[in-house]
């Protein structure tokens, strides 16, 4: 009601800060652990990048592989997902709704089940089983619904049907409409979906752990390895590398969703 802060405000602020602390403090601790000479002694032992260096020597390959798979996953979801999203946004029939439900299943069901199913079905195919493509398949199944949903949402918001009808009335063929009108206007959704897919792929563990082989390790798999078998400083340094990759993506996503919300102009309005 006024700018005078009530007691309730301070109590709630303290509580929120506590929750925040709970979430952030371990992150800070792990970053410090990864950068200090000796975790037992703490930061007093001096800051160093040697652990990060060791991590890089041991696990650089996992980082590259994760990035590679994430980009490949992005390519696949774009090619598979954007046309599918177009169809789902154009038609609202029982079938399309069922298909949307279907595509979400790999997300609704634990990654473990998806992974087990893949192993049991394709395990015999040695070249497939042992290649990074096997992991890629798992990632694509898991991230596709996010791309589809993001693009469908944007297409609905821009009233894609009407835009298409206008373009068709002016003589544009399907290809011209799709690449000249629909895709450019759906770009915010595609971008948001892309960021989501890359972030999810880089961080995917539940499926990847089951599907990986010693020669196809990704970053999260490497992380699990290092937590189990390496000293704390290495695990921490490795986690720092992970944060490094994730933070720009998260910032980009925040920025995009902030820009989107600004356009819609919806915020809780303070007293008139």
């Amino acid at each position, binding site marked *: 009601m006024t700018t005078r802060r009530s007691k309730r405000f301070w109590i709630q602020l303290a509580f929120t800060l506590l929750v925040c602390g709970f979430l952030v403090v371990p992150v800070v601790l792990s970053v410090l652990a990864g950068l200090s000479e000796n975790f037992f002694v703490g930061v007093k032992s001096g800051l160093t990048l040697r652990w990060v260096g060791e991590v890089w020597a041991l696990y650089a390959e996992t980082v590259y592989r994760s990035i590679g798979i994430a980009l490949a996953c992005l390519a696949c979801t774009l090619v598979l997902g954007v046309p599918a999203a177009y169809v789902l946004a154009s038609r609202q029939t029982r079938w399309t709704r069922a298909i949307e439900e279907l595509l979400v299943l790999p997300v609704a069901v634990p990654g473990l089940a998806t992974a087990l199913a893949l192993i049991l079905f394709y395990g015999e195919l040695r070249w497939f089983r042992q290649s990074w493509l096997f992991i890629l398949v798992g990632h694509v199944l898991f991230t596709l619904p996010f791309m589809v949903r993001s693009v469908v949402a944007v297409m609905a918001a821009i009233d894609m049907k009407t835009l298409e009808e206008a373009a068709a009335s002016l003589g544009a063929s399907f290809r011209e409409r799709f690449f000249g009108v629909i895709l450019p206007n759906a770009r915010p959704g595609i971008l948001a979906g892309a960021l989501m897919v890359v972030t999810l792929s880089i*961080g995917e563990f539940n499926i990847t752990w089951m599907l990986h082989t010693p020669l196809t390790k990704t970053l999260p798999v490497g992380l699990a390895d290092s937590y189990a078998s390496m000293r704390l400083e290495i695990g921490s340094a490795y986690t720092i590398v992970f944060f490094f990759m994730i933070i720009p993506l998260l910032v980009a996503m925040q920025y995009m969703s902030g820009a989107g919300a600004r356009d819609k102009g919806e915020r809780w309005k303070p007293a008139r």
Partner: protein
Amino acid sequence: MARAARDARLHAWLLAPALAVFTAFWLLPLTRLAVVGWSGPQGLSAYFAVVTNAQYFRSLVSTVVLSLGVTAATLVVSGVAGLFLTRNEFPGKKVLLAMLTFPLAFPGVVVGFMVIMLAGRQGLIGDVSEWVLDERIVFAYSMAGLFTGYLYFSIPRVILTVMAAAEKLDSALEEAARSLGASPWRVVRDVIIPGLMPALVSAGAICFATSMGAFGTAFTLATKINVLPITIYTEFTNYANFSIAAALSIVLGVITWAALALARSLAGGTVSAAA
């Protein structure tokens, strides 16, 4: 008429790649999984093993109890913090929000590591308790640690949902209640919570489903307690008990799918990722 037929054909072609990939790599394999589930020595009863077998039953119960507990705690914590953040402006709020939602991208393994940082053998809580109580409290590798980990990845998700829903609440309703004399607590009880109920139930169902299916966190914490995903994993990798693993994972899949379907019917929209 030709137009509609042409459209249908075009749409079919556009949808085909995604459906083909989905069928080849998910639908068929999962059907095979279901078949493997009842092809083992126990036959169809493998699907009921989760109830009939004591060990598996305990595993299921632990998982359900843990998930319910995490859901309840998360709803309360996120409700209070989320409402507070929606209603108040103060310097640094954006930073606070960023910090609260940052853990959204962490895989379960990293969450497990965070729990170790807090409550492991060299954890912060251990340090503090040693300083204050002369006793090192270490709980990362127990049910409490798992609970903490699940709380860690659930809170950011639910806070965002609560905030989104709270922003849509009609402030006139609260003002009306206040004009009739309701105290702040009454306003929360009579207006805000009923108004947020669909979002809370939906977020709660998602939280429950995610906790039920979570694997990475438990794996990192190498807990002595068995949650169902770990049980399934052990059956598959250590004991090569394919049919049991298959049956259990199908059962688990059905449970999480049902919870998420409930969430969707109440919220009408967004379902977020498992951890």
